[in-house]
């Protein structure tokens, strides 16, 4: 392929060419450019439905790209400084799973922090790999879990020299980064792969003054949520690869990926990549400025703490993503989840999530200063109207997991529904987590501890949305039959 410029968008161009040919469709999808489903066309718009098309020669095929998708992926790889980029249409979840499945086979070990997204542990259930958890440490004042300290990673590596890979959040949901470069160098010295979950880090590839991206740190693979800060459609994502064989990774992807990849998602990746490559730097500069502005206004209110780079400690908070707007709320006597609910119910403001001690508002290029003023004013009002004494507020602590069985073994083991109060000491065979952020309190194969039960009870009382269990009310959990 001759080198294309970042101003091109091969999939978009092919779809436009295809539209102008007015091809008569005797193929799927059956709505036939929307004509067969008027209501849907009216709702989504004709433009949208006319490009909801099937793979075909002029449009390439996601499972085995040879033309326009191949070109678009090559452009994405170049924009993200990777050897290869895969367009993913089943979310960053599928990208994380592909990373784990590519790196580890059944019974092989993978080193990871416990505050990973559920998709990473799901991948362990699929692959049969065994997790070696590194305690990410907690900032006790804020109750947020942090990055992995380099010494802790080193210890895990030395204790598990047979581990195949290290998985790193870059950054965490809150914007905390580990020392990815040093971890990568260390892992490579021990012949381990480095996999980065960059679900919240797309902008690292385009920002000035933002933390290092996985590819720049030399990581082997990275799962990048283009649909978060990158602006593409929900469920579209990128998998970046540096160190592995493209062909093998493609085979792994095709184990679970749809053979009907949506061109809405694929074209949104292509268009968003072009936008970021051409304008990303100024876009994220603006986003960072908006976040900084909101942070200083929120800190002005008093009681709230909108935290940022001052937390950097050279290790477990090696760097911090200043486009994130995370606010600690416990000092006004309200749990983050309570502030989250008040913002929505009283002020018509929807933010990304609230947990025990914090809320996170997601700032992006789509925001206006006008709307930030509303958020800040609403927080000021919530303090005035609802602030309480902070006594009795639980801060989030790291719940040290006691892994008894591998996730796959526990998940597929014979299990029984156990009233949650009687589950203490048993081995959990499913997930229990608050969503968002989707970080498991308990994962399959872990012992149910006192602290985990206490946390679940408190999260329930405060109105967190608990999920992962067969019992939707989380009054029972599945445990391994004894």
């Amino acid at each position, binding site marked *: 392929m001759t080198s294309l410029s970042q101003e091109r968008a091969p999939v978009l161009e092919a779809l436009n060419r295809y539209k102008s040919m007015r091809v008569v469709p005797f193929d799927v999808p059956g709505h036939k450019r929307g004509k067969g489903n008027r209501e849907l066309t009216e709702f989504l718009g004709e433009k949208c439905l006319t490009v909801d098309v099937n793979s075909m020669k002029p449009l390439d095929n996601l499972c085995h790209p040879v033309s326009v998708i191949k070109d678009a992926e090559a452009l994405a790889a170049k924009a993200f400084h990777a050897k290869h980029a895969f367009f993913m249409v089943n979310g960053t979840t599928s990208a994380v799973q592909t990373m784990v499945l590519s790196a580890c086979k059944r019974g092989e070990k993978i080193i990871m922090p416990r505050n990973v997204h559920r998709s990473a542990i799901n991948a362990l259930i699929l692959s049969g790999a065994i997790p070696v958890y590194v305690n990410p440490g907690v900032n006790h004042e804020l109750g947020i879990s942090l990055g992995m300290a380099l010494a802790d990673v080193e210890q895990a590596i030395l204790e598990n020299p047979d581990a195949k890979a290290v998985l790193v959040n870059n950054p965490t949901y809150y914007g905390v980064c580990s020392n990815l470069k040093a971890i990568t160098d260390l892992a490579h010295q021990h012949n381990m792969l480095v996999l980065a979950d960059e679900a919240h880090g797309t902008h690292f590839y385009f920002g000035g003054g933002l933390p290092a991206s996985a590819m720049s740190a030399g990581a082997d693979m990275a799962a990048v949520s283009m649909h978060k800060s990158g602006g593409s459609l929900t469920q579209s994502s990128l998998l970046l690869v540096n160190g592995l064989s493209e062909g093998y990774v493609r085979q792994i992807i095709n184990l679970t990926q749809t053979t009907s990849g949506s061109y809405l998602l694929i074209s949104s990746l292509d268009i968003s990549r072009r936008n970021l490559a051409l304008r990303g730097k100024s876009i994220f500069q603006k986003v960072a400025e908006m976040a900084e502005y909101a942070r200083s*206004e929120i800190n*002005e209110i008093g009681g709230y703490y909108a935290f940022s780079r001052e937390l950097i400690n050279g290790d477990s908070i090696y760097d911090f993503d200043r486009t994130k707007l995370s606010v600690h709320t416990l000092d006004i006597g309200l749990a983050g989840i309570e502030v989250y609910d008040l913002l929505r119910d*009283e*002020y*018509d403001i929807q933010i990304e999530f609230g947990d025990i001690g914090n809320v996170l508002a997601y700032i992006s290029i789509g925001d206006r*200063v*006008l709307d930030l*003023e*509303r958020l*800040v*004013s*609403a927080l*000021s*009002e919530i303090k*005035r*109207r609802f602030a309480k004494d902070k006594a009795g507020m639980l801060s989030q602590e790291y719940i040290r997991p006691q892994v008894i069985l591998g996730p796959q073994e526990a998940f597929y083991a014979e299990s029984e529904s156990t009233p949650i109060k009687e589950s203490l000491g048993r081995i959990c065979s499913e997930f229990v987590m608050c969503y968002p952020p989707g970080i498991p309190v308990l994962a399959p194969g872990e012992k149910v501890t006192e602290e985990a039960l206490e946390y679940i009870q408190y999260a329930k009382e405060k109105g967190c949305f608990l999920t992962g269990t067969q019992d939707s009310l989380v009054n029972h959990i599945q445990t391994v039959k004894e």
Partner: protein
Amino acid sequence: MELWFTEKHTDNVNFSIKVDRQVYSGQSEFQRIDIFDSLEFGRFLTLDGYMMLTEKDEFIYHEMIVHVPMNVLPHVKKVLVIGGGDGGAVRELVRYPEIERIDLVEIDEQVVEVCKKYLPQTAGKLDDPRVSVHYADGLKFVRSRKEEYDLIIVDSTDPFGPGEGLFTREFYGNCFKALTETGAMVNQHESPFYPVDAVAMQRAHKRIIDSFPISRVYQAHIPTYPSGHWLFGFASKKYHPVEDYHAAGWSARGFRTKYYNDKIHVGAFALPNYVKELLEEME
């Protein structure tokens, strides 16, 4: 030549004024600003194509948004006007000698500049020494103020575009906080007539009654606003707009007004049944 200004009052209703000539057109950071001359309504100002005021009928709006609260609240010394860059509300306020300070917070400096130049009828008193003009987001300005104002007048545009933050619960709550313990807020409250406006009106009412112990709505007839039937909100911490009205005080001032008088003050709070029902739905 036939040149007409047309504003869509609904998808199916147009309101048109024959234009003699266009006096000014500009695009600010926030909105498009136009000024026209017409034979029927004199000079008029539009923002993003929406009618803000005409020389012929602006007295109704500005008298009603100012004299109603000023003759209920005793000892008004400090007033905050949010929006109102045309200066009409300020013009009525400066007639009261007991007012010591008026802060006008307008987001769009260009509106003030244009009105000063082309609409001296309303903007003529913005240079009064008691008046300070702040070019800022109203929501932001009021956030940091606490028990400072005796009266807040919310002279906003519609609940979309740059004025939308001024129809929110957080804004009304912030105003409550910025008022002294006997203070009150008066706001432009949209129209009850066309369904789209009525929904905005109801939402504003719901948010105000959630924020203030006393909340009443009054009306006026404004020919150039959609349907002509317009509402104002009176939200107060202590004083009731009718029970605490000082008719004698008003007469003693001897102000000349074209719309407002002591009977109108009381009568404006008598609302048609359909309006009462719309409001009661929210209460």
